[in-house]
């Protein structure tokens, strides 16, 4: 709103040379539209990725729930075939809800889904914290080098005395 008012006012009364100078100062102090646009674009892509991941998690959860439910009572035909496989396997292992492989693909348990989500969170956080470590490393060497050169200068002064 404020910027809009400035723009309107400038259009009305201020000569273009001054207007340009003022705009240059404003632009230098604030992120440009292009940067905003880029940042927004990245955010949007990230949001889309998160949505896709969430959908994938839901799908896996559903598959897992179906395979569990299928062990007691028949569901859809796909769940049926996987439940047949798991009901054959489960008497031997006698672990209801444990992972089961069917001809149709891998069926994942809720525990595995949770582990996947955890791994994703950890990967993101690790990458972010690694950034900090890398930056600190640069700063640390900068400090060490500064100290070294101070020491070297000190030695030189001592020797020349």
């Amino acid at each position, binding site marked *: 709103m404020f910027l809009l008012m400035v723009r309107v006012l400038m259009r009305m009364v201020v000569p273009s040379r001054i207007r*340009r100078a003022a705009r240059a100062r404003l632009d230098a102090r604030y992120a440009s539209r292009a940067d905003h646009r880029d940042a927004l674009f990245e955010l949007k892509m990230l949001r889309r990725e998160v949505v896709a991941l969430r959908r994938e998690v839901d799908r896996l959860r559903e598959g897992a729930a179906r395979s569990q439910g299928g062990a007691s009572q028949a569901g859809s035909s796909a769940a049926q075939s996987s439940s047949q496989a798991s009901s054959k396997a489960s008497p031997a292992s006698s672990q209801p809800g444990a992972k089961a492989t069917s001809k149709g693909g891998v069926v994942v348990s809720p525990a595995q889904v949770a582990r996947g989500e955890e791994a994703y969170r950890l990967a993101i956080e690790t990458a972010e914290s690694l*950034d900090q470590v*890398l930056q600190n490393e*640069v700063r640390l060497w900068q400090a060490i080098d500064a100290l070294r*050169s101070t020491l070297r200068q000190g030695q030189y002064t001592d020797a020349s005395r």
Partner: protein
Amino acid sequence: MRVLWARDDLTWRLQFLLDPEDSDTGTCADGQRIELRTNSCGVRLAESIPDPHNDLLAVAAWTIVAPWTKSRVTFDRPISARLAEALCSGWGVDAGPVSGDARTGSRLAVSYSSGADSVAVAAMFPEAPLAHLQRVSHRRVPNRWTHYRSDVLAGLAGLAAKTGREVSVVQSDLEFVLSFPRPGYPEHQAVAVGALLQADALDLGGIAFGYELGSRWLGGGRYLLRYTPENPMWAQDGAWGRLFAAAGTPIVLPVGGVSEATTMRLSLESELRDQVRWCLRGTTTPCGTCGKCLYKELIQAAVERRPMRTSVTAAAPVAKKWQEPPPYGGQEMIEYGCARVPGIEETPFARAAEFLQATVASTAWLDRCYPPAIDEIPEPWRDQVRAYMVDSIGLMTPDEARQVETWGADR
């Protein structure tokens, strides 16, 4: 700043150490604030060649370390007095040690991204070798940006060799030394590190870039809507222009005087047309859904005078900015497209077209070449560019040139 290069067969490894006065937050020549993530990177050449002149190594390093250097830069190999002078006058930094002669060369290479602009440049100079820089992962930085398909673009650049072009694909992780705002070139000129390190082997006397009228004279994306004769990145007598010239590889902008509509047309008419790709996300084909695909489809539809082919609607997030009033980044091309695409009112640009009220007449200047852009071309290539522009594009009239020079002044 202290700069150290080490060579391991095909790979040049760069390490840079901050002096006490340096800071890990800096500013790129276009004013963007950028932050340092880590202080090493590598450049992997496609084939084994002799070591380049020290000035070339120094300029390549400077494209990476400039934003974070305050007052001095110390190279591990001496540079020529001419290069030290260009660093001092351009950035106010003491550069050294100084020893030895400056270099020269004779051929022109094209910094080649596979995009329409650099393909247009490649088409203007059929004999020029093409230098592509491919982003690869940094061994210290987890790559969270795999949607950027640098491998696909490098593959397309490699395919350009099938047309008989001399192509080199150089790989680098240098974009990951940036942590903010995202991986990218610390300075725009870093895209040329491959060409610089090969400059002696290829006998280069100039490096051509695909920066067009909008990027060179209308301020590009960052200086929105402003005539920028003094553009700090690309003006021949700007800091970067003088530095590259000092290293015997002056910056050449063969399409600096023409719009993206013209480079699009030239690229689609060239023998490299099957290898043109502006989308960074698609694999076998452009993704068709990103913001860049949408923008370029508008221009292509305008050039081909046909309706837009896109599944993107006005409600899509990538189309959101076109529902708002101007100014827009690359606005001259939005005006150009809105004035020419049949059925624009059915596209995501309908609102923008209403706001802009552009016509074919009001955007005709974007089909011609801005003459001062030719005068700026270094002498060995100036006449060739002028002949090309006069014969196949046409020069702007003084009235049209005034539209460039008053761009944004009345807004």
